[in-house]
């Protein structure tokens, strides 16, 4: 078995606001192997985006990583010297954001922005820079890359802009890309397209991918493994097929049930009763307990993430194993 690429243990990122401490991420652990695609799934407020930012060291004040470790390629990222961390960003780990309309700088051409990202780590001649840019743009499926390189972001459609963002992430051939809901802001038809393209890209280039999303359906077609997050913690983790066919955490089951695809036509969509808790004042014990049909007194104590053979669950009353 190849060495793990990324090992996150007990990561916690808290935000120290005027209103109190928001524990956006409070105990996240997972591992990632080279070439693997991990789907990080959760509703808004579950802490999945902050997890992504924490990996890259992009948490803005008043937030900061308060405990835990992130071992990437054998090196500890938490507490790493900022200059060293910066050198790794873009080169070894890259990130694609949700809304390409706000990620790309509107007053710079695509060429200029790609050049900035490229020359942040390497010195190349202008011609070499341009050649490399055209190369990656072609890889992500932009037609007529040579000419469109000199256009401005607003002259592209949403889908094309996201492709540019992905291209920028690919410039240095990083072994890990974190994609934070990259298709959420796009039209549904484009979503499917980009998803397929990412899948083949990952297969071809062999990059590891962490795909953050709120949509189990999207993730299921792409990911090798799925980790479900709730209230800043991972509650279930395992190979995609296993998690989807045999969810063991009630929350995962709830998510699956609420998918339109799992609902008979004409029937109301199933919902998980209750609402996501405020991360400011989490009650003690299992954060999902108020919404869980299986909760009892045991759930007043927070469950640990328990698991073996690449399958973990954080629950006192995991759902039964279904025979395969």
């Amino acid at each position, binding site marked *: 078995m190849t060495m793990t690429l990324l090992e996150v243990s007990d990561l916690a990122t808290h935000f120290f606001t005027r209103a109190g401490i928001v524990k956006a991420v409070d105990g996240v652990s997972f591992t990632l192997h080279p070439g693997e695609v991990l789907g990080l799934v959760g509703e808004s407020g579950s802490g999945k985006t902050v997890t992504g930012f924490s990996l890259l060291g992009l948490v803005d004040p008043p937030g900061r990583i308060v405990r835990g470790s992130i071992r990437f390629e054998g090196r500890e990222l938490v507490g790493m010297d900022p200059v060293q961390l910066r050198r*790794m*960003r*873009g080169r070894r780990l890259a990130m694609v954001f949700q809304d390409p309309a*706000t*990620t790309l700088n*509107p007053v710079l051409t695509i060429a200029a922005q790609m050049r*900035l*990202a490229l020359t942040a780590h390497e010195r190349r001649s202008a011609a070499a820079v341009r050649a490399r840019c055209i190369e990656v743009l072609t890889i992500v499926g932009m037609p007529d890359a040579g000419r469109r390189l000199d256009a*401005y972001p607003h002259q592209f459609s949403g889908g094309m802009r996201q492709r540019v963002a992905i291209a920028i992430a690919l410039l240095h051939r990083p072994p890990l890309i974190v994609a934070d809901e990259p298709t959420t802001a796009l039209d549904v038809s484009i979503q499917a397209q980009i998803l397929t393209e990412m899948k083949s890209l990952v297969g071809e280039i062999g990059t590891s991918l962490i795909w953050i999303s709120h949509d189990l359906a999207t993730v299921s077609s792409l990911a090798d493994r799925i980790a479900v997050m709730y209230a800043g913690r991972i509650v279930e983790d395992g190979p995609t097929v296993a998690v989807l066919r045999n969810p063991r955490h009630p929350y995962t089951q709830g998510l699956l049930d609420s998918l339109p695809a799992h609902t008979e036509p004409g029937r109301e969509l199933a919902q998980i009763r209750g609402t996501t808790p405020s991360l400011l004042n989490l009650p003690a014990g299992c954060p999902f307990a108020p919404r869980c049909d299986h909760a009892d007194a045991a759930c007043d104590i927070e469950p640990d993430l328990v698991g073996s053979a690449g399958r973990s669950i954080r629950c006192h009353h995991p759902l039964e194993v279904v025979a395969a």
Partner: protein
Amino acid sequence: MLGFAIQRVLQALVVMLVMSLLVFVGVFAIGNPIDVLIAPDVTQEIRAQTIAQYGFDRPLHEQYAAFLGRVLHGDLGRSFVFNMPVTSLIFSRLPATLELTLAAVFFATVLGVPLGMYAGYRPDSVAARVIMAASVVGFSVPTFWIGLVLILVFAVNLGWLPAGGRGETATLFGVEWSFLTLDGLRHLILPALNLSLFKLALMTRLARAGTREVMLSDTVKFARAAGESEWTVLRQHVLRLISIPLVTVFGLELGSTLAFAVVTETIFSWPGLGKLIIDSIASLDRPVMVAYLVLVAFVFIMINFTMDLIYVGLDPRLRKARS
């Protein structure tokens, strides 16, 4: 792009026309129009002559047409006090004001933007707080008072710099400039500093607000995620993004600075247009007042027009809309 330029030129012409009408009505039609052109102490004969000459006995729209005609030919009347054509009077004073204003604006921008950017980049640092406190003072305190304090401290108490006047000049392109001589520079420093403070404070605050906002944006996060250095982020992303609102205010305040030159020139006895207008108001030299207003209106329209052009240059999103 050309269509846009033409559109703005036409708008500018319309505004000029409206301004000229307002000035005409304000000065020539209200009250005693004849008093605008001649000194109050001339004989009845000359008075009657001038009335006939200028056609004040003619209907109003004819008078306006005549007025426009005169203005377009560059005839803005004759100053009572100096007994010379107002146009040449104005042109002789213009370089001094230009010098002062440009020095002030240059200073305000070159110092204000970096200070503001730093304050926005590290908003909780001691330096940032000091900068922001100083900027509140800078735009609260009336220009004339700062001038007084500057004179008190640097001229009266320390004796380092002169308290007024323009100092020696040297000629360049047939015009007298004082920044070309050392003595002239010594005289230029205090008034330029005085005039620049308001704009400096404004630029600093704006740069800070803009920087703070942009630093929290996705664009900066993405740039950092790509591993770009903080210096690159500040120069290539933040600076470019904040220049749009900065240029807006720069343009608006340019006019204001020109206007406030009136105050600075009075305090420092700087022989420019500002002092001219104040003296003219005091001595009721109305042809000069009229000319000043027309000139100022023209300058403002030009500034606005130039600002519009610069916008389109700065923000590529506007070019698409215009073409």
